[in-house]
């Protein structure tokens, strides 16, 4: 039936967990009052009339962090199989991981020196 044993639980649990927000919002739908009015649907801006929208171009700073994140997250994912198999691979795997991490540390130092990790 399933090639990966144990994953049928994951699927059923996904359905159950998916029903949590649906149930919560569904029950609230029948219980809550419904009132209309244009002013109650205005955007909150500390009591002022909202000036402009929020769907604008935002600062590249967030983009830089996202970019560095992708590099290091992929690195971590590559290291997981290495960690699981480490006891069978021995010292050679250690040296290989050392080289792999060293290359990425160079990348980190580069990003650091270039100011990609600076907020201001």
């Amino acid at each position: 039936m399933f090639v990966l044993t144990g994953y049928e639980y994951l699927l059923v649990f996904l359905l159950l967990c998916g029903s949590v927000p649906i149930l919560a919002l569904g029950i609230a739908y029948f219980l809550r009052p419904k009132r209309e009015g244009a002013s109650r649907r205005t955007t909150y801006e500390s009591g002022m009339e909202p000036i402009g929208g929020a769907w604008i171009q935002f600062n590249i700073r967030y983009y830089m962090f996202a970019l560095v994140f992708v590099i290091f997250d992929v690195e971590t994912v590559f290291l997981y199989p290495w960690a699981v198999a480490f006891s069978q691979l021995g010292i050679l795997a250690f040296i290989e991981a050392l080289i792999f991490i060293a290359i990425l540390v160079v990348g980190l130092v580069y990003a650091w020196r270039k100011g990609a990790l600076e907020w201001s």
Partner: protein
Amino acid sequence: MSQGIDLQGSFVELLTQFGLPAGVAKAMWLPLPMTLILLAATVSIFVTVWLERKISAAAQQRIGPEFAGPLGTLQAAADGIKLLFKEDIVPAKADTILFTLGPALVVIPVFLSLLIIPFGQNLVITDIGVGIFLWIALSSITPIGLLMSGYSSNNKYSLLGGLRAAAQSISYEIPLALAVLAIVLMSNSLSTIDIVEQQSGYGILGWNVWRQPVGFLIFWIAALAECERLPFDLPEAEEELVAGYQTEYTGMKFGLFYVGSYVNLVLSALIFSILYLGGWESPISVDLLSGLFGVSETTPWLQVITAAIGIVMTVVKAYLLVFLAVLLRWTVPRVRIDQLLDLGWKFLLPVALVNLLLTAALKITFPVAFGG
């Protein structure tokens, strides 16, 4: 190592004795532990909210909730019911679909991660091989939900809060994953069951916290940041951003963010206790005691007691950590966004990398002590 109690095996066996095919019996078992875990998670929200209010009150020399139920225990339920009866406002300028999908996307991965939490050797919904990695993967989905709700609100506070939440989550994701990696290295497995079993046998002395003191601290700081707990609650820093990405939310959608954040706190505490504090293991090994009194490990009553102690131990350890998190909330001031990112990228990331390599080197040098 004792085999532990096997509820699924007993259940399936019982039903097959009544003449049901094994496949049907197994399918009937399937939803039982899941519903139980979901119920337990819901109860844990109420307990955590109540604890948080009481501990906060004690930290500030107040009394805290006391009128709703004995000692105010029903306060959280009252809050939840109140949210159910609140009207649902979607701002006119917001994107309705994303606005509704956001909170759901925050809640679902958090609940789904409970799949891999073991309360005993066989007391886990399923022991899939990738266990802890599934949690790492699922916890990366939550920031998408936060970003989605922040962006779809079309509100400046929400946008900034959502972006901050995403930046914070991804910054602390990597030290977190690297700290877990060091544990995986010692256990030779990603399964949460194997990780706990690797710490068993020596009572409190066998727990990973002694072998991974640095990883322990990294994981704690990163987990606090992932849960957006003070001192890292910048996405909803009320002095700056009103309520961050939640600003425009009302009623149950707002409630879902709270459900998500409290379950996430309990979940992180549970995973923390599994990784570093021996999960269901008690400080004095039950195997050792049973051996001392000459009772066989497979005696049925002893198995029941061991399983009960295991569940209690897991929950007690997790709630001690929740207690610590709440105390920290009233002890440490909030950090600035640049300090937060500096701490993540320039301190925790290099330290976590060094910790990983150190663990690998120690494992080669002392293979027995580090799970050769």
